[in-house]
Each structure stands twice: as C-alpha cells, then as structure tokens.
C-alpha cells in the first residue's frame, strides 16, 4: 500500500501534464492559424498596389459612404437605445418579457433575414409605400443602408446600455431628486454619466458592426456600384467581378477597423464584456 500511493500520484501528475501540453499546443496552433490567415490577406498585395487601390475612386467612395452611414446609423441607435434601455432596466410594465424577446431577436437573426424582412416591409406594405412617396425611399438607396444598419445593430446597443443602467443603483437618482433634479435631470446628470463606459463601448461596437454590415444592406439597399457601395459591398462586387486588388483593399481597411475597435473597447472599459 505504502509503495503504491506515489505511483498513483505520479499517474495523476502525468495526466495533468498531458492535458496541459495538449491544450497549450492546440492554443498555439489556433493562434498561428488565425494570425497566418489574416496576414495572408493583409500582405497579399504589395504596398504600392494597395496604395493605388486605396486611391481609386471606387474605394474612396466606399470608404466615405461607409463612414457616413455607420456614423449616422450609430447616432440613431444611441438616440433610440438610451430611452429604450432605460425603461427596460427601470420600469415594470405589461408584456415586458415579450418586448424583451422581440428586441433581442434581431441579435440571433441572420442579417440576410433581417434584410429581407425590411425589404418586404418597405416594398410591399401600404405604410412602406407611403414612406417612399413622402420622400423617405429606402429601397436600393443610401438611406436604406442606414435603415438596415440601425435595424441590425439597435439590439446590441440596447443590450449593452441596459446592462449598464441595470448596474446603477436607482438610489443615485433618488438622491439627485432630493438635491433638486427633475426626473430627466437626475438621469442626464447622474445615471447617464455613470453609464459612460457602457455607452462608449456600445458606440464603438455599433459603429464597427455598421462598418462591416453586409447581408441586411445587400437585401435592402442593394449592391449598386458607386451608389450603395459600402466597403463590404465593394469587397463583394469586386471579388465577383474578379478585381482581387480592390477587394483586398476593402478587406484590409475592414481588418484595420476591427483592430482599432477591439483596442478601443479594451481601453474604454475592461468590465464591459461585450464580445
């Protein structure tokens, strides 16, 4: 008995060592694979070729259109998500569970499905047509890009802000009210500033997701060169048309944006686990 015990212990140690080696090697392989795949893309075209592609009017247009639409759609998301997230975190109301479910659904929905739903809504329903006649045409227009991006990204923004607001004790607002704030004043001066990191993280994520949005945009705004051509659409059009250099240029920019986003989120707040 006395001699067997150490043997059993060694075996356990061996098992632990094996587990450690196995998982560490697998981690190294996955890390290398992802790194090499991304590097392949970034280093595909030599720098001069990349610069030339970036300078082409088509890519420049795509960059500008992507920047404008993502920025506008992010602002719309913020404006809508703040009150919605606040009411979800603070108030009880009839049918709250259903509302939460519906608001979360687009998160798990493939963007293509979201896009086709939008297309049907704006294309076939009387109110969609009325909007079109009122000058709010979204089908195959740049405006459609914004609408598609808002639809897909709003649930993210609401979720992030909601968890930020929920983490803030409502008593901060109570105290603010006894100190002379109105209801909205207490929110603007206390709760919103306290939710700052969540708001920043949400904004960066929403914006970068909008920059990369493809499926919903393709369905609603279409893929028209130099009209509804955002960066992902440019990538898609050029890869379809065989112009690999332009496609790679668009992809490179999108990778850079992802990298910057990741760093920004890490910087703003380590506590907001959004990914």
């Amino acid at each position: 008995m006395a001699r067997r015990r150490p043997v059993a212990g060694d075996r356990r140690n061996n098992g632990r060592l094996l587990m450690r080696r196995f998982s560490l090697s697998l981690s190294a392989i996955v890390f290398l694979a992802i790194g090499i795949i991304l590097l392949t893309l970034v280093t595909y075209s030599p720098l001069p070729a990349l610069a030339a592609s970036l300078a082409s009017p088509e890519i420049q247009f795509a960059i500008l259109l992507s920047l404008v639409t993502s920025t506008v759609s992010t602002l719309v998301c913020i404006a809508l998500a703040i009150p919605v997230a606040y009411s979800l975190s603070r108030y009880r109301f009839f049918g709250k569970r259903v509302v939460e479910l519906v608001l979360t659904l687009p998160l798990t929905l493939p963007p293509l499905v979201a896009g086709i739903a939008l297309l049907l809504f704006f294309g076939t329903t009387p109110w969609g047509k009325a909007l079109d006649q009122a000058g709010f045409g979204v089908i195959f227009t740049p405006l459609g890009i914004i609408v598609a991006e808002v639809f897909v990204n709003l649930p993210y923004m609401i979720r992030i802000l909601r968890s930020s607001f929920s983490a803030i004790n409502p008593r901060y607002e109570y105290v603010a009210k006894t100190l002379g704030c109105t209801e909205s004043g207490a929110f603007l001066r206390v709760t919103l500033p306290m939710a700052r990191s969540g708001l920043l993280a949400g904004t960066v994520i929403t914006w970068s997701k909008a920059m990369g949005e493809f499926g919903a945009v393709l369905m609603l705004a279409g893929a028209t060169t130099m009209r509804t051509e955002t960066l992902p659409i440019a990538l898609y059009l050029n890869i379809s048309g065989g112009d690999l250099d332009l496609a790679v240029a668009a992809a490179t920019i999108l990778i850079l944006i992802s990298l910057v986003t990741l760093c920004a989120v890490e910087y703003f707040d380590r506590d907001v686990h959004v990914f």
Partner: protein
Amino acid sequence: MLRIESLSITLGEFSVRDVSLEIRPGEYFIILGPTGAGKTVLLETIAGIHTPDSGRIILGDKEITATEPRLRKIGMVYQDYMLFPHLTVEDNIVFGLRQRKVPKEKQQALVAEMCAFLEIGHLKKRYPGTLSGGEQQRVALARALVLKPEILLLDEPLSALDGRTRERMRRELSRIRKCTGTTIIQITHHFDDVFALADRIAIMREGQIIQTGETSEVFLHPVDTFVAEFLGIGNIIRGTSSRSGDIARIMTRHGTAFFAASGLTGDVVATLHAEDVILSEAPFASSARNCLSGTVTEIIPAGSTIRVILDVGFPLTALLTRESCHELHLEPGSTVCATFKASAVHVIPAGSI
C-alpha cells in the same frame, strides 16, 4: 412639523400600512425595526421618491403628498452614501446648489462653510471611490446639509462603519443636530444610536408602526411582547459618569448612583438588560458591585416571564420567571433589593442631547 397621516404604499415585497406619525420641529426621531419592516420605503416616501397609495404627508402647514422631491426641502442620506462616483467631493457637495441655480460666489461660500463644519476641506478634489467609509459619510451629509433642508432623512447611517468610526459619526450627528437645528429622522437597528441620539422613537414591524414615544418610555413600557423582545434591553439610564478607581460611578439625575465597568466620563447613557437584574428580599454578599434597594411599582406578565418595574431612585426593569416572582411574594409596593454586576452595564456617551 412633519405629519404623516394613514400613509400606505406597497412596493414589490415591501409595504407600509396605515402609518401615522408626528415629528416635531428640531426633533431627533429614530425608527427602529427588523429588516424588511418597510423602513426605507417609508423614508423614501417621505422624501417623495414614491407616491403613496393612500394617506397624506404634511410639512409645516403645507401638504406635500404630491410635491416633487426636489421641491420638498427634505434631504436624504443612504447607508451606502450614494455619492456620485463620477464627480469629485466638491462637485458632489455643490450638486444641489447648482440645481437650485444658487449664484456661483454663494455656492463657493456655502461649500467652504460646510467643508469646514464637517472637516472635509482636504478631500475636496478627491473622488468618492478613494475615501474611507467615515469620510464618504461626512461628504454625503455635507451634500444634503448644504441645501439647509428642513428635514434630514438618514437611512441606517452608521451601520456600514466600523466601531470607532461609528462612535465618532454618532457624535458628529449629535453635533449636526445641535448646530443646525435640523429635524432628523433616522432608521437604525443599532440600539446605541437610539440611546445616544433619539428624542423619540417609533417601532416598526411588517409595515406598521407599533409604538411611538419618548425613548425611555418605550423601553420601560413596551406595548406588546414583540416590542419587548425586539428591544430586549429593558433599562436605559441617563447620568453623569465619573472615575471611581478602575470603574465608573454613574450618578443619575434622581440622585442614585451605581457602578459600571467603563472608562467613560461625563454625560452618559447606561443600558442594562432586564434579565441581568437579580431581585432579592434582602441584600446579599456577592461579587456584584451594585445592590440598590427600592419598591416595586408595576408587575407586567410577558409570556412565560414577568417584567417587574422598580423604583430604586430611577425606574429599573427586571425580568423574572413566574416562579421567582411568586416565591419572592412580589406585588406593587413590596420592598426589594436589585443586584447587578458593574460589567453587565453598557455605557455609551450621551452626545449633547
């Protein structure tokens, strides 16, 4: 004066039912009760955070039941202070003055005055997250007091502090009340707060006020066994303490003195559990330092035990079993000796009430 008339409100699992209270101007009023009694909801409703389901709140000669919290002139300090973490100490204190659009120069003067009063001037530029519990407490008090509220509501203000800081803050609260004359309503479950600070107390259970009265009156005459058991202690004796060798000699206002194991001198409140008082027909030799003779004034049955109230120069309550009471042939008017150990007496400073 704050008058609450038949106030009822239900919030989730907490409720306040048919509460009526009258709090006099300048009074230090303490609401005692077990956890979940609805004390915080009551305070928040007084502050105007929640609208009551029924009942009225009247401050002075104005009904404020439907008044917005910001117009009530009622300040509130929570147990966890609720200092705004994104603002410096100074900005926290000036917050209310900014909301009231007080002129800049006046803001600064008021903040400086309040910082000096509560000795927090050196903390002005710090953020609340870097302060100790006692410091946060003083900043929270400054933030509420700088608006000169008619009523200050304190929700368990001392329970998050450690022993020594708590003692200090208790003196601070007593000083605030004395210097500002603010009416204070406090929630607590610390009896020391009650003895050291309260003029009158209310006992709350399951959303209802069960008893209200002068502190010593409530302790001497609990209305039911719940209050008696909840208060437990039985005796609160005010007096002046002086050193007598290693222990304290406490002289009561009625001229009777007794001993307590304490180093405190000056005005004190002594508390003594009713069950620590031994009654006998004649004095007997023992290690107990106190043996006072007096007469029985009242005998109150309380379940399996009996509370005997004596006059030994001051009112003193003893808790006896029915058997002991019977064997001693106690009845109102009987002469007895009350014996208790100096170490059974708990002494706290009386503040400046």
